[in-house]
């Protein structure tokens, strides 16, 4: 199933090269003997008659109007431009090039999908692993820590949200306080008095709590109230997508812990770090890759759905979902629905097949 990777690679290349592929500025401009690359910056340029320049393959920026070809020109309609400047996949109401829109859409889909899946992976892995290890008695709180917990929480909250100081200072203070908390735990490491932290229960409660929040509902409600933007979207998608990863990670770590090679490594006195790096992670990798690909696909799907509902990125950012939304509003413009839709399902399909190739047991799809 190598073709899944090929497709993702293809989309990634398109996303990386997006400014080179579709732009309303020349890639290269020789004006009065000076060589410049106008596509790199935002400066307004004027091209003289004698200048030599090379335009990108698609000489349109995503979302830029073209009034000569406005009002939903289909790919087969006669267009008011030369053969090379044709809108190959048609235009939208304002005459925006659909192909340029698809390229920009690929960019946003991959950025949003990857970043939010990464956030989910980090949260899920931390919680899942924490839950799995808490059972082994590695994590415990001393009474001193317990006593300090509540005041410290209060203090940190106050520092982060109420005190008037610079942000860096606040964050530093926060980190110091966390370090202090764990350092106190190490001080009476030997003493048997303390509370075993049943993190597993906490994790399962948290998982149920987050699972009971319908993802789309939550994000629509929050996006309706907060400022719409790519960062908010990535964070929200990341925060709402870690449950499956945590569940899988926990189960898998349990399984690994019960295996012989793990016990052998532990008995031989290998350090915690070494066990994690040499034993745990390599065995977790296939499953994590599969789950990561799945949450990647899920995030792309959610982003497209949200853009389709009008709660996605900001107005000037063209995504696959926003193109389909525009197509839905006008019946005849099939090219607005079809091409972004095909890209979207190709991308999802590739990710699903990657997930499948990593894990043939747990996920049949």
């Amino acid at each position: 199933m190598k073709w899944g990777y090929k497709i993702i690679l293809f989309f990634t290349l398109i996303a990386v090269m997006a400014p080179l592929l579709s732009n309303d500025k020349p890639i290269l401009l020789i004006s009065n003997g000076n060589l410049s690359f106008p596509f790199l910056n935002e400066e307004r340029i004027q091209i003289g008659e004698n200048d030599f320049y090379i335009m990108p393959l698609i000489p349109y920026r995503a979302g830029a109007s073209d009034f000569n070809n406005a009002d939903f020109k289909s790919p087969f309609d006669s267009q008011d431009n030369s053969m090379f400047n044709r809108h190959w996949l048609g235009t939208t109401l304002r005459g925006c090039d659909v192909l340029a829109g698809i390229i920009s859409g690929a960019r946003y889909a991959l950025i949003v999908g990857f970043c939010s899946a990464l956030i989910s992976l980090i949260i899920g892995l931390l919680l899942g692993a924490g839950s799995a290890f808490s059972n082994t008695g590695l994590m415990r709180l001393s009474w001193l820590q317990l006593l300090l917990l509540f005041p410290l929480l209060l203090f940190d909250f106050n520092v982060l949200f109420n005190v008037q100081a610079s942000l860096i200072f606040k964050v530093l203070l926060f980190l110091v306080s966390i370090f202090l908390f764990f350092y106190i735990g190490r001080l009476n490491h030997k003493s048997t008095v303390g509370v075993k932290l049943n993190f597993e229960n906490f994790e399962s409660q948290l998982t149920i709590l987050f699972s009971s929040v319908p993802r789309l509902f939550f994000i629509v409600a929050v996006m309706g109230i907060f400022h719409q933007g790519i960062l908010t979207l990535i964070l929200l998608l990341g925060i709402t997508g870690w449950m499956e990863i945590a569940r899988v990670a926990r189960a898998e770590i349990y399984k690994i812990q019960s295996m012989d090679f793990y016990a052998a490594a532990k008995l031989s006195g290998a350090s915690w770090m070494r066990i994690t790096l040499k034993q745990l992670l390599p065995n977790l990798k296939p499953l994590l890759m599969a789950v990561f690909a799945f949450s990647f696909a899920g995030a792309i799907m959610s982003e497209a759905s949200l853009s389709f509902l009008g709660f996605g990125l900001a107005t000037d950012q063209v995504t696959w979902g926003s193109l389909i939304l525009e197509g839905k509003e006008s019946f005849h413009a099939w090219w607005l629905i079809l091409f972004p839709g095909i890209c979207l399902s190709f991308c999802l399909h590739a990710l699903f097949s990657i997930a499948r190739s990593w894990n043939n047991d747990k996920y049949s799809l």
Partner: protein
Amino acid sequence: MRIISKIVLVITSFIVVIAFSFSLIRYQSNRPLQAVTANNNFSQHAISVYDPSYLKLYHLYGLDLPSFYFSISNLALPYSYKYLPACDEKDFLIYWSCKTGSPETIYKVYQSLIQFHNEEWRIPPSQVLQLQRLSRELIYARNIDSLNNYYRQYAENLPRESLTFKAIASVNTINASGAWKQWVPTFHLHATNQFGLWFSDWWNNGNGIYARSWMSKNTVDSVIKKPLIITLIITIITIIVIVFYSIVIAAELFLNKEKRIVDYTLNVLQFLYSIPAFFIGAILVFIFANPYQLQLFPANFSFAPISENDSITILALLKSWKYFILPVVTLSFGAVVFFTLMLHRSFEEEYAKNYVLSAKMMGVNNRTIVYKYVLKNALYSSSTFLFLLFPALLSGAVIVEQLFSIAGIGNLLITAARSQDVPILIYLFGLIGLVTALCFVALDYFQQKIVGRLLSKKEEKE
């Protein structure tokens, strides 16, 4: 016992979710008063923060209360300054405090504000209006010096008995040795707070600011009732469709596995799975409901007889069968594909087991084996999917309802989110969260009791 603890967990998590979303929304949305006083139509002006009655209404609706049962603050920053209305006086105080520089002045000003918090008016409304006029006039002749001048005048003209005057006076008298105070966190408990008010309001179907929709001004219950029923109907029909079709397709594919078409069908199913629901829906609308072309099925649910009346009758439901086709197909698409493939795999697993072999030996028809024995066991093993289907469909309904303009809860959510109708948003959010959590509990119960018992019975038999 386990179930009870689960339910307790669900209820607590439900309350936590609601409280969280409430605080989040309350924190961000700074203008519930404007939203309440404005109309959804374009003609009426929302109440302005400069309106003298603004403060009065603000207090009346309890918006100057803390938003939750507890709050964390510090000695220098009393909790309640956050809930002062956004009026000119607050602007002035913040401006003035910022002018004087250090955070402790802010503390002192608000400290003294809290001291007189129970006084009814800080400045007489008429005077507020006069001062605002003055400010506007100065802003009109715009420069920053004039703003400074304005605030200086504001301070000079303050009546001696006014709270702000006292606040400034007290700031001047307190010495400036309180800088350490902001590092000392304090923990406040609030018996009366906005969340509590909202909850009791909602519970009693009251008249408070959070118990009624900010847009239609109706009680939240009455707004949500009909959309909920419509969405439930669609979801239930969809579940039936999904279960029926996936069983039939999976079984038939399994029975005819020698034929070449089966391979191709499986392939097509795989392909269809990666198509998102809204893309499928948009294409279905384009093909089947296009006014230029085939108008086989209506795509507009709002003309269905079921959405005409406030009470839903069976007759209206039957009459509007045509309107259900496209939404149900769109909604069930992904799930049918997923469930078919899942069942197909379970069939393969189950079919390799001993009881099938023995049935075959006894000469039972292959079709009977699949439909009677294999199916039952395959369904048990994929029951997880069925329980989680319901919440997933509720989420999917958001998109489908947008596509076919069905007046269900998904549509309600979108309109409420667009117009920042906070009461509806919180209610919907809590409701769906509760339903989902209950589904989890039911799944847990099902797996514990029924599947477990069946398995143990089977083991006994064997």
